[in-house]
Structure formats: structure tokens, C-alpha cells
């Protein structure tokens, strides 16, 4: 079949390398973030794809220096959009507690490293969604409070409070695991 548009490049800004590097470096990270927001890897994949589609249209100069933050911000917006459309915003309602995803009883005694990690993860997964989100942005994706504030449109103080509350709770739970 005749192809009337030969050689259309995916990017319109010429610096495909910039976009490609961002994609390679952050695709998995973003997918995980979106999965956590949406609770669903299928939708997360779509949201991340949309995010990178949007990225294609960004010129490197416009977002250079804060590109990763930009990706997370756009991804989050899109994810919230999806949630809103599905009336699932309650996931992120303030003060929501005990999003129970781990049913196993809390183990005691000395734990092997892998076991410890699994336990810590299950404890993190029990945090309220809004705390989980900032905890992951901080400790999994390495953003600063300020960056997290911009991504989530929370205030820096609010981010600090959420992380503090989450860390305090986790510390208490870690302590309870030790003999």
C-alpha cells in the first residue's frame, strides 16, 4: 500500500536521543509509580505510554534539568485523570487507612535479609495511599521534598509531614519486629 507519509519521525524536535535516554532510564520507574497510583498495571502502562507520547512533543531545552520531575508530574496528572473518570479518587482520600494488601501475620525474630525486605515492603504497602506515594517518590525514586511537592502539588510542609508520619509508623513497626 502506498505510504503517503514517509519517514515521519516520532519526535518533532530532532533530539530523539534526549527522549530516548529518558525513556530508557525511567520507563520502568514510571510504570511502577503509575501502578501504585492506579493499583492496576494495565492502566499504568497506558498512562506511562501517554506520558512518553507527551514527552515526544517537548523540546529538550524546555524541560532539561527537571525532565524526570516533569515525567512524574505528567504521569501523575494522567493517572489522577483516569482515577477521576473511574470515580476511584477515594483511593487518595486524605486519611484513608489500612489499605490491606498483606495478609500474613507479622513475623517475629531474626529475619533473613530477603525476608526483611519482604516484610518492610508489606509494611509499606499497608500505609495509606497518600503516604505510600510520597514514600515511594522519596525512597524509591529519589526525589527531594521540593520535587515531590511539585509533582504532587502538595506543599513542601505537607510532604514533610506525610513522610515523617509514614517513617515514624514504619519505625515503630520495625521496632516491634525485633525481639
Amino acid at each position, binding site marked *: *500500500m502506498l*505510504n*503517503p*507519509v514517509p519517514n*515521519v*519521525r*516520532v*519526535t*518533532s524536535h530532532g533530539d530523539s536521543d534526549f*527522549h*530516548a*535516554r529518558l*525513556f*530508557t*532510564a525511567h*520507563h*520502568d*520507574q514510571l*510504570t*511502577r509509580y503509575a*501502578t501504585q497510583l492506579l493499583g492496576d498495571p494495565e492502566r*499504568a*502502562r*497506558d498512562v506511562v*505510554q*501517554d506520558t512518553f*507520547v*507527551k514527552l*515526544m*512533543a*517537548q523540546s529538550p531545552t524546555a524541560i532539561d534539568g527537571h525532565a524526570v520531575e516533569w515525567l512524574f508530574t505528567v504521569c501523575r*496528572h494522567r493517572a*489522577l485523570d*483516569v482515577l477521576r*473518570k473511574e470515580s476511584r*479518587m477515594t483511593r*487518595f*482520600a486524605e486519611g484513608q487507612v489500612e489499605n490491606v494488601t498483606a495478609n500474613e501475620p507479622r513475623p517475629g525474630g531474626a529475619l533473613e535479609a*530477603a525476608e*526483611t*525486605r*519482604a516484610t*518492610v*515492603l508489606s509494611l*509499606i504497602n499497608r500505609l495509606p495511599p497518600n503516604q505510600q506515594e510520597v514514600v*515511594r517518590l522519596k525512597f*524509591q525514586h529519589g526525589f527531594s*521534598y521540593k520535587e515531590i511537592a511539585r509533582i*504532587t*502539588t502538595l*506543599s513542601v510542609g*505537607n510532604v*514533610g509531614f506525610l*513522610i*515523617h508520619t509514614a*517513617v*515514624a509508623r*514504619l519505625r*515503630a513497626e520495625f*521496632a516491634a519486629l525485633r525481639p
Partner: protein
Amino acid sequence: MNYPQSCSSDPQVTAFALGQLEGDERVAMEAAVRADLTLQAEVESIRAAAALIEEALAAEMACPEAPAPIPERGVERLVPPVAAGRFRYDEPRRGRSRSVGATLLRFPQLYYVAGGFAAACLAVIVAVPRVEYRTREEAEGTIARIALARQRAAEAAALTAPMVIYINRPEAAPSSTTDPRPVTVRPRLASAGPGPGLPVLWKENPFLRVTQVPQSVLPAEVDAGGYGLVRRLIRQGVRPPAEAIRIEEMLNYFPFRYPTPKGDALFAAALEVASAPWSPAHRLVRIGLQGREAEEKRGSLSGAAAPTLARDVRIRVDFNPASVARYRLIGYDARAGGADERPDEPARGDDVVPGHRVTALYEIVPPGADEDADGPGGAVSEGRAVGRPEPLRLATNTADGARGLAGRELLTVTVQYRLPDEAGGRWLEFPLTDTGAMFEAASADFRFAAAVAQFGMILQASEYRGAATLGDVLAWAAAALPDPADDLGGYRFDFLDLVRRAQGLAE
């Protein structure tokens, strides 16, 4: 468990421990910590906890349950090649994922048995001692299968004969390690109608006679998820089945630049009409609704409830019988077992947020244009309505027909809504007059929307798809690419890529 009292004390201490304080705050806290042993212990404890959290989350990143790593470089990653074989990826992963001794492979298996048995979906998680990565195609294939299987859950309940449904993967040479079950080709249920004994799972919106149904109601809120499903399927080399195509969702995936409301109005309507490219004797109407944007203020979208622009919003279209003989709302096709049957008179309208945007297309048969081709699903052919004004002046030729219609009101769009804090309803009316424009003269947004609709109709093997091909879709969409600096570009290039891939699949 004598944990220090101060453990829930001060977010500033946590911020300090995590290196998030700056300037004077940091200096002050440093001094305080130096002077206070309890505080020192607190800071150490926070850092230890942070290290544990980081390590656990890093390990989680290293065992991806959904994303597979990217085997090559390049933007083309976004659009991985169809039918690529299994790919082995040996480059060590970046980041904090050093300690991976095993990775998880998931083998989701969808058993989908109807006729007395419930559909069952089980995923077997097997730990293997080596790091082995699957290709993105495989991962996406899995996801697409799950999505479709879910969609069919309701539909399958309606089936009476036992039958196993799988989505066919063309390159599938099921290897015993990754895919232990047979892959069965799912019967296609396109316009040719269902096979013997199979129920109709999908039915297109038909043309309606204005004399019988002069009014059409649209939901104001349309999900855009349908495009993602189509995209996933095509990228894995599967032609999406007709019932998986939701043209209204595909259309609303794409952003369009509609004029923003002026003055106090909450909504503006971008109405446009031109000849339907797939059926030039027909008129194509694009209804674009744009809600007022929220005033820019940081923190307004703080993760909790999004603000509401208007409640109970619905869009009503009244056709002028003098200019419209029949009309068809494109998309919104009926689906068996779906709870989302639309758009007939929703009990209640939708609540929408600031900046809300929705796009809908109607195909219109003007009086006198191919009256004989009553079309499938069309009502009784009762012939031309007696007393319809000036039917004979209109020739079937497009240009003549359009000239005859030019300057005449075609339809009126009424947006009904309530303000969030008001009980009474309000409405805005937007009349549309046909200028007789040809498709080629229409706006880029209009032509692009038409291309998306046509793409959907071709994939559906719609009875109304006309003579146009995927090549036409590509040409229309390519001619509707925006200025390179416009961020609509990413979406539209993505669409072009998808149409090209669809061309590569069996017609």
C-alpha cells in the same frame, strides 16, 4: 518496645535526617542535634529506617512484576516491532538492583470457559534462579489478553455453548516454558455477523430518521481507555476484534484545541461540518465541547477531590428535519452484557471538572442524498417524507447537495448542566449552520478526528465505513499534523504509527 517518645515528634527532625533541610533551618537543627543525645539517636534511627525502606523498595524495583526492561535504545522503543521474537537482555540493570539473585516470571494463564463454568484467571508465579527478561511484546500481550478477557467476562456469561476463548498471537509458537497452554484462535465477530450459534456481542449505532427520532443525547464524559487497548493489540500484531473498538473513546483520547468559553459561560462548543470523507454525499458534524479551565493556582489539585465545574451535564442535539434526513452517532455502539449502554437518555448527566473536553461525530444524510440506500439496521424504508421542504432541489451530487444546504441551520447543540451549588438547571445553546464545506477545506482538528473515526470503523469492519482505506486514514491524519512545536504532535505521530502497523496486519 521502648521506642523513644520523640519518634513521632517533629517532621523537621525527619526532614533533617533525610537531608531535606536547607540554609538556616539546617544550621539550627545541626546545632540542636549536636547538643542533644536523644535527638542524635533519633536522627540515627530515622536514617536506619530510611535505609531499610530504600533497600526494600529498591528490591521491589528489581523484580518488576509489570515492566520489562528495554532491550535497545532509541525512541522507537515506544513502538516496539511487531512480531519480534523472544529477546534476551543481558545488560545489567541500573540502579540499586544489585542484589537480585532471582527474578520473578509471571505466566498468567487465562482460562475462559463458559457454559456452566465460571471464567477463571490464574497467574502462576515461578521463581527462577537466573535473571531472564521477557520482551515488551510478551508483557504487553499478556496485559492485552487480560484486558480482553475481562471485557468478555460479562459477554461470556451469555454464551450457551461451551467454548474456550483466547486471543490469537500470530507469532505464537507456544514454548513450554512460557506458554504451556494451547492458543486458540478466537472467532472474529465482525460485520459479517456472528457465526452459527454465537450471540451478537456488538452492534453498531444505526442511522436514525429525524422524523422518528429528532433528538439525540450524548454523555458529557467519555473515557479514553479504549484507545490504549487498540494500541496494545495492534502493537503486538493482533487485529483488534470489532467489539473491542470503541470509537468514541479513541476520539476522546486525543486532545483538540477548542476555543475556550468566553465571559461567564462555562462551556464553549466547537461545531464544524463538512463532507464525510468516506461518503462524500453525507455530511460529517464534529461537536467539540470545552469546559472553562480552572484558575491557575498551585495546590488546587492536591490529590484529593478534583474541583467540579458543573454537575449533571448532558449534551442534547436537535436536528433540523429540513436539513437532515437521517443521522448516525459514530461510536457508542451497543454491547452485549455491557453495563454502559449508551447514549439513550442517561438517567443523569455527568459531573465534569474544569477544562473538561469531549468530542463527538455525527454522520448526516441530507434529504435527497442516497435515500434508497437505507442502510443496514435502517428503519422501514418509508420513502421520502411528504411535505419535507424542497427535497427535489437537492441533487445527490455532493457539491450540489452542499450548495442546497448552505446557509441553513443543520442542528442545535444544547448543553444542560447545573452549577455545583445550585439545584436548578441551566443550559447553553449552540446552533450549527452548514456552510457546505468540503472535507479538504475543514480544519485540521476536524480532519484528524475524521481519520480516527474512520480508522475505528475500518477495524470494526463497520457497515458504514464507506470506500476509504487505511491508506486514506494515514493520508488524512498526516495532513492534519499540527505545528511541530504544538504538543498535539506527539499524539498524532503516535496515531500515524499505529495506522501503519494496522496496515501490516491482515486486512
